[in-house]
């Protein structure tokens, strides 16, 4: 059943609607609920395939559904439809408008209605796809303020990496921070790259979602095996490689690869001269979990992130 979460008129004969698709057993189910949210950033599309696959599997096995599954594939419908990351017309990042307010601006009103609708979920998952510049291995990012509640859930989500990062005031206006503060455990997934779909990652996360749904008694099935992710909560574990000069970046390694100290991760080229301006190398052994896809770099543009190898992990 497709339901309207919020509907606002636009100036010229159009309604802006954020809709969700609700799945629950005919008898109403056991009241447990998971909400899968994606498309807050209109240029991040990996979650589209995940929503499709979750819906498809429920349609194939409706008898296995015990609780409620709410899919919100397009939190920022105008953005998705116009290839715009933020909310078009406002040049505003929707993920900086939460928790919103009913007497705030148009965008704050949308945010408030969405938050209101998500309250009551036993788990919320907000699926992102990095941005158009970077590719990420499937990972969950957790604000350290919420680590105790969220890390055990993230361990069951079939991702490769769980990154617990420091608290940051600016991030207080994200959907995840608002929901977690309201007591709705919300996991932020980053995977793949903007403007593209990655079948393997959608498959991987779909398995994780059904596994979590099993744990939450929303879905009954044979136990689905999930990966044990690498967990990092020490900010000094992560090495950032930023472009030291402006130019054209070409990656030499793929995300997910193990690196040895000195390995060439990518190069910055000068097409005028045929010369390599800079070689970016791994400063120590580690695991490449982020790599730049978008070739044009300014000085400072992020090119890669490497998780340092530690004794207990290979």
């Amino acid at each position: 059943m497709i339901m309207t979460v919020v509907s606002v008129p636009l100036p010229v004969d159009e309604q802006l609607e954020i809709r969700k698709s609700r799945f629950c057993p005919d008898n109403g189910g056991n009241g447990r609920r998971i909400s899968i949210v994606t498309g807050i950033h209109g240029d991040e599309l990996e979650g589209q395939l995940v929503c499709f696959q979750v819906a498809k599997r429920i349609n194939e096995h409706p008898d296995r559904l015990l609780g409620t599954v709410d899919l919100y594939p397009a939190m920022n419908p105008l953005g998705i439809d116009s290839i715009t990351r933020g909310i078009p017309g406002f040049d505003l990042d929707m993920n900086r408008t939460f928790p919103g307010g009913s007497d705030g601006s148009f965008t704050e009103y949308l945010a408030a209605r969405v938050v209101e609708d998500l309250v009551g979920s036993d788990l919320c998952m907000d699926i992102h796809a990095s941005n158009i510049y970077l590719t990420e291995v499937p990972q969950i990012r957790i604000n350290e303020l919420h680590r105790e509640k969220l890390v055990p859930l993230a361990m069951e989500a079939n991702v490769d990496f769980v990154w617990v990062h420091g608290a940051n005031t600016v991030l207080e206006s994200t959907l995840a921070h608002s929901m977690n503060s309201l007591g709705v455990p919300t996991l932020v997934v980053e995977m793949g790259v903007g403007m593209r779909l990655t079948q393997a990652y959608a498959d991987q996360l779909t398995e994780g979602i059904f596994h979590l749904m099993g744990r939450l008694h929303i879905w009954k099935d044979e136990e689905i095996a999930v990966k044990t992710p690498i967990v990092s909560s020490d900010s000094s574990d992560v090495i950032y490689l930023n472009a030291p000069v402006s130019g054209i970046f070409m990656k030499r390694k793929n995300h997910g690869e193990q690196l040895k100290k000195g390995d060439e991760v990518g190069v910055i080229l000068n097409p005028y001269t045929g010369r390599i301006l800079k070689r970016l190398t791994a400063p120590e052994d580690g695991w490449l979990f982020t790599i730049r896809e978008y070739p044009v770099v300014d000085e400072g543009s992020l090119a890669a992130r490497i998780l340092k190898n530690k004794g207990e992990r290979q």
Partner: protein
Amino acid sequence: MKKELLYTIPSLYRDDFRIQGYRFGHGKKALCVVGSMRGNEYQQIYTCSQLVARLKKLEGEGLLKEDREVLVIPSLNPSSMNIEKRFWPTDNSDINRMFPGYSLGETTQRIAAGVFEQIKDYENGIQFASFYMPGQFSPHVRMMKSGYENVEKARKFGLPYVVLRIPKPYDTATLNYNWQIWETNAFSLYGSATDVIDEKSARQLIEGILRFMASEGILKEDIENSELSEPRVFTDRELLAVRSKTSGIFINLAEVNQRVEKGQQLACILDAGEGEVTERLYAPADGVVFFAHSKPLVYANTAVFKLLA
């Protein structure tokens, strides 16, 4: 005056990114003025460049104190303005959400860090700011209520209003907020316009800055203050918002600074197909129009006016 290159990033295909500063006097770092940070802040760069011209003239007349240093930076972001883009050309990030910056971080974090390093030690900091919503303001001095704000000094501009803003999470990454944290007296100056040049508003802000400079002993002579009344100080929460309930074509009937009476019609919203009035907006109280929406279209749930009762 000395023109100085404050920060630069070499580019592969475009001309280098350059932030230029204009330095007057030397010695005690008395005042830094920053113009536009976003590509659409035309009024801000205009006002700032007019300030440079004015200070040059005053310097030529020997009216600036020699032992006080003033730095004026008309633009932190020529790269965006030159292509009529509001935010950073490649990644659409906002420099005014990057302070205090990070010199090893992403491009706009580096720009913020590079600039902040050079402007954080001034006793006073002024930024010509713009609002995130399109509209016109009554000229005012705005400061974050961070606990470090100096309201007494803000009065010295002699602008009609001093607004204290309760910081929201994203405000903590703005220049104004970080200046205050680093113990600079920070003031954001809002004129009436952003996207268009408003000569009168620019002159008003420049006069305000000169008055401030006189009170700080940066100018040798006092500015004529006779006709100025005492500024009104209030927090942004005291403003009464008038919100649209519908979307459509916006016809504004009230001007910024206009005194209105309770029940007076301020605007109407028209149906974009049939041209009929779908909504009339009225003043909820007697007051002055402090902010007015300035776009031809309006969305529902937008604060189109803010009144000061």
